[in-house]
């Protein structure tokens, strides 16, 4: 059994805690948060030890891994402390406030051969994995253009101030929301290397952007658009999608469906000419526990498995998340230049 702890019991942290707690190979031993309301609930109803100070928790408990789900500005000191004590780390996204800090953490984890992962859960959604496979199999031929979109209603009022409204703390649609989509583009299509232009729009927020529209060129020369808006209340929850236009067809993919249009039938993939629509039922990753969506559970299963085998995985590494952070910096820099 692996011994695990969770730092930060907000919306993401508490959900990670339940998934870790339900994992058959994990002994969930400790949590850390600043809210006495939340900690007292753990003391009252579970056997998990509670801490108000993460340094104390990491010093006293002999943990195999820790899940860090605090606001972005705390990631650097917390991840560094955990790695310093040779604890494997799963950290929520966005990874770091600056790529300099992210680079230091990535280097440290690699030098110490510790398993490291960031919570970009979209990469564990079955439809997007299928999309990646179909692109590798060259089903739609040479890619002409892509669109990566993300919409939701996070900020729909002018009042209210949290870390999400502070650019110094990783707030703003580009740093927070768009990083999901950038990471997905990076995982499925290719790494953005050039930003051709960026428009940032503040809709309700005063100090940060609520929408970002940017044109990207990837390392494989493919180019496309990033369109993300977190102030769109026509969406019940975050909706992320990728549309890829190729010479031989087109694919539209979101978390629930993958719609493939082919100019000619593809017998190897058993895809007909015209539209084929498949949904998540066919591609959902098998999990042992389900909370909020397979992807949240599958990413923890993957991480736990890597920790047990003492082997770094290839998906959602610190390095991959650091690259996403760099792209976000490039997008924001381009907006300043323009």
């Amino acid at each position, binding site marked *: 059994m692996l011994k695990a702890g969770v730092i930060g019991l*907000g*919306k993401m942290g*508490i*959900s990670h*805690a*339940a*998934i*870790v*707690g*339900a994992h058959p190979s994990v002994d969930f031993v400790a949590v850390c948060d600043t*809210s006495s*309301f*939340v900690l*007292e*609930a*753990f003391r*009252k*109803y*579970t*056997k*998990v030890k509670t801490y108000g100070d993460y340094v104390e928790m990491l010093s006293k408990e002999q943990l195999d891994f820790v899940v860090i789900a605090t606001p972005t500005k705390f990631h650097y000191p917390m991840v560094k402390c955990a790695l310093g004590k040779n604890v494997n780390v799963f950290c929520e996204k966005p990874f770091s406030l600056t790529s300099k800090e992210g680079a230091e953490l990535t280097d440290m984890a690699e030098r110490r051969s510790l398993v490291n992962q960031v919570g970009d859960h979209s990469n564990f959604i079955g439809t997007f994995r299928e999309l990646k496979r179909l692109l590798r199999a060259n089903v739609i031929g040479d890619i002409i253009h892509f669109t990566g979109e993300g919409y939701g209603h*996070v900020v729909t*009022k002018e009042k*209210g101030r*949290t870390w*999400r409204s502070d650019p110094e703390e990783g707030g703003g649609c580009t740093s927070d929301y768009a990083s999901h989509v950038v990471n997905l583009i990076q995982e499925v299509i290719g790494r953005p290397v050039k930003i051709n232009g960026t428009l940032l729009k503040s809709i309700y927020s005063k100090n940060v952007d609520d929408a970002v529209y940017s044109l990207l060129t990837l390392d494989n020369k493919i180019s496309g658009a990033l369109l993300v808006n977190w102030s769109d209340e*026509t969406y*019940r*929850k975050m*909706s992320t*999608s990728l549309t890829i236009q190729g010479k031989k067809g087109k694919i539209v993919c*979101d*978390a*629930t*469906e993958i719609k493939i249009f082919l100019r000619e039938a593809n017998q190897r993939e058993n895809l007909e000419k015209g539209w084929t629509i498949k*949904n*998540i*039922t*066919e591609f*959902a990753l*098998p*999990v*042992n*526990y*389900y*909370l*909020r969506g397979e992807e949240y*559970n599958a990413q923890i299963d993957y991480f736990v498995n890597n920790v047990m085998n003492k082997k770094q995985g290839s998906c959602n590494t610190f390095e991959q998340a650091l690259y996403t952070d760099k792209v976000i910096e490039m997008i924001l820099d381009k907006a300043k230049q323009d």
Partner: protein
Amino acid sequence: MDKVIFGDNQFFAVNHVSDEKSRSQSIKFKNNDAIIKTLDIAREAGVNTFMCTTHNRIADICDIIRANPLMYRDFNIYPCMPYAYKYANAVTELGIAGTLKQYLPGNFIESMFKGGAAYLLRDYISIMELLIDSEMKMFKGIRTPVIFLQNVVTDLLLGLGMIDVLKAFKCYVEKKYNADAGFISMNMPKLLHELEKSGIENPIICTSINKAGFRMPGGKELYESVLRTKKIRVIAMQVLGGGAINPKEAIEYVCNLPNINSILFGASSKAHITQTVNYINKFNGQTLVETNLYKNFTQTDAIKYKDIVDG
């Protein structure tokens, strides 16, 4: 519990297998009239139980039901609480204390935050009871024989090992509302195991059960074995596997499993509602026939009979 229960996902743009469909549904059910009309179609098809989240718009539907007591005299609602996004968005925006302030009655909160009765802040069960009351307000005067805890909360508490809180939910709902407590869960085998360990027998659990094994963590075989060997009242949901299985095959599979008390389904068109109800009625009939009569049939008779039943 009725054999067939009508769900509400389609009314609130919840579609687990198509974001696009969910958006078109949000347009179709923009007005409450459209919701009531669909509920009436379901009633005409013989479905008298509506299982719904405590979404703000359900309060309006309840007003209509209360205003027409004769028309809805046989109508039951199974409330499912909480409507998760309402609280999740509030927690993101206001924090936990702010959310409690928003949703709990004034006096209680004032006393909590004034510090005079700070210990109340640690009385989680009382807070939960107040939240249940606040969610139940909209159903006043309407029959709610079973009250459910939503899967996101059930499975969160289950994962955290806070089974005592699930138990407290059950006790309060039984005592205060004279109703059975139900748990929606995506982890039925684990939940049943933990509930039994804590002394809860024959619980009502609403869970995904379908031929495709979709959203059945641990696998379809595990679920089937629990259904065969344990005492449990199951409401099967997602029986169509999100549309991946053809309806006839899907419903036949679920109707032939033991311990399935009810089937929960949602649909927005008259054709789909009627078709689903007909299949459920037909395959339930077939189960009875199979257990009582098939044993004396020859193989040929059985096939012939099945052909008649299947039309």
